[in-house]
């Protein structure tokens, strides 16, 4: 049903429709409204057969979720920023143990300096942890990606994270078409664990693995992640067929046919960039990366093949190195001869406006790395 509601609530309803057996979370801005709503769903009885477990920290939240998933129960948590960092040991364990939990990340910057606003630094801190990572442009996509996330995770035994821009999506009211319970049940079968802790047949998981086997196990997870490209694409296509909406898959291309300049990005800023591309004309297109992990190399190469200029705009930064997505795109397009520029934007919630974007996209000063709206006077005064 089409509704006008807060993004956090839309996501919470979508998660509830996936019938998790355990929701365990610790509050942190800007994710909190999601788990508050799930708590209310459990309390009111709208979400049945689900334990909502209150814990004392994010480390406990991810640990409980890992434990319940290992016991064969569909499990979910959500976090942001420092909360994700506090979970990090569990994040790596979940993928190493091949436990298909689903986590929402309300994207927020990482301190110091402390800052509650949106960027993608938190997500980038776990890019090599072996998770599937999906980025939403709108709250419709955010809701839909959660339904797909459980399916992708459980088919592949890879934990899956849905990344949504903190505040910009989590706190925005917009219209979202939420499916019925029957529709979701039809799309997402009950969780059928491939491995399950069982008191009747005791076994241990996560035991020490010596050098003779460790590399083989990591190799298996690595190969499994690469194969997941096809699963993310197929689940996206299945979702589109069933729900008549294109929210999922690997990448999304907008006006790229015949475009000489293509801007590549992730998350909600793609919407603003589409408006900018419309205003700049036919020569400008946008590609948004929906599946950041697994990284859709082939799809990106195909989408960007005919562009002369590629601009990668991202809300994160490898300090001392530069744009993270930009460098991955450079690797993917290695030796193609295309001009690739990097724009770092929106760090710590810095405004991203159409006017700034247009100036930056049209600038031909040859600067390969640009910080959108950087206040040079402020930088100079900090040097003193």
């Amino acid at each position: 049903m089409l509704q006008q509601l807060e993004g956090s609530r839309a996501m919470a309803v979508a998660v509830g429709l996936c019938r998790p057996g355990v929701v365990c979370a610790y509050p942190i801005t800007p994710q909190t409204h999601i788990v508050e709503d799930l708590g209310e769903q459990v309390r009111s009885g709208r979400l049945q057969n689900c334990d909502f477990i209150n814990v004392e920290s994010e480390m406990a939240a991810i640990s409980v979720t890992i434990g319940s998933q290992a016991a064969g129960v569909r499990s979910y948590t959500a976090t942001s920023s420092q909360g994700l960092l506090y979970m990090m040991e569990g994040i790596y364990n979940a993928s190493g143990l091949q436990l298909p939990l689903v986590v929402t990340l309300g994207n927020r910057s990482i301190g110091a300096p402390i800052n509650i606003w949106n960027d993608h630094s938190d997500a980038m801190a776990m890019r090599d942890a072996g998770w599937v990572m999906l980025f939403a442009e709108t709250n419709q996509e955010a809701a839909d990606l959660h339904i797909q996330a459980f399916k992708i995770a459980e088919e592949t035994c890879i934990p899956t994270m849905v990344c949504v821009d903190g505040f910009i999506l989590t706190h925005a009211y917009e219209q979202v078409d939420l499916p019925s319970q029957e529709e979701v049940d039809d799309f997402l079968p009950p969780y059928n664990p491939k491995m399950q802790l069982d008191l009747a047949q005791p076994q241990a998981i996560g035991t020490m693995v010596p050098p003779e086997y460790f590399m083989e196990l990591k190799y298996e997870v690595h190969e499994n992640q690469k194969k997941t490209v096809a699963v993310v694409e197929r689940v996206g296509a299945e979702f589109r067929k069933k729900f008549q909406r294109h929210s999922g898959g690997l990448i999304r291309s907008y006006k790229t046919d015949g475009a000489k300049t293509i801007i590549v990005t992730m998350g909600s800023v793609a919407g603003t960039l589409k408006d900018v591309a419309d205003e700049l004309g036919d020569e400008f297109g946008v590609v948004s990366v929906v599946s950041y992990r697994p990284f859709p190399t082939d799809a990106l190469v195909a989408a960007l093949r005919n562009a002369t200029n590629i601009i990668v705009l991202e809300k994160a930064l490898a300090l001392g190195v530069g744009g993270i997505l930009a460098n991955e795109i450079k690797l993917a397009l290695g030796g193609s001869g295309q001009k690739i520029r990097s724009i770092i934007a929106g760090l710590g919630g810095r405004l991203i406006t159409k006017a700034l974007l247009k100036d930056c996209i049209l600038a031909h000063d040859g600067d390969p790395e640009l910080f959108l709206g950087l206040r040079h006077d402020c930088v100079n005064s900090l040097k003193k």
Partner: protein
Amino acid sequence: MFQVRIHGRGGQGVVTAAEMLSIAAFLEGKYAQAFPSFGSERMGAPVAAFCRISSREIRLREPILEPNALIVQDRTVLEPAHALEGIAAGGYVLINSPSPIGLEFDGLDGVTIKCIGATEIAMEHLGKPLPNAVLLGSFAAFTKKIKIDSVIEAIKTKFSGTIAEKNVAAAVMAYEKIA
């Protein structure tokens, strides 16, 4: 696209006002996007919230820099919050004030200002100084961009029981005062 910026102080329901306005527009079959200014919001501190209304899908995510309409829930934020900044030509400015306020708009044509004692109406109906729903009632009459019936439905979506009824009564009174 019609863009509305709402200014006030934390605790006055500024964000809720933007949300209700978006629900009202949605109920009329339009696309609407409401979002807060994402500051470190505290009781009493100046806050802002935004609402875009359009017949087409809204993709833009920047804050509203050139509003077609402003709702100022607390006149004491007019200066500190630079509340009038960016107001578009032909725009509407609705201010919560029982008496008229003289405002200068350099070089802008056709900006209309309306003042209404929304806090007084809220005190009469709700017994609390919460002017947000009241001002949406006046906004409907002033701008004619949204129907009062949609505002009433939006209030009922966000509130329930007697609180909803009282807010509806206050909004309708504010609507009739301006209409």
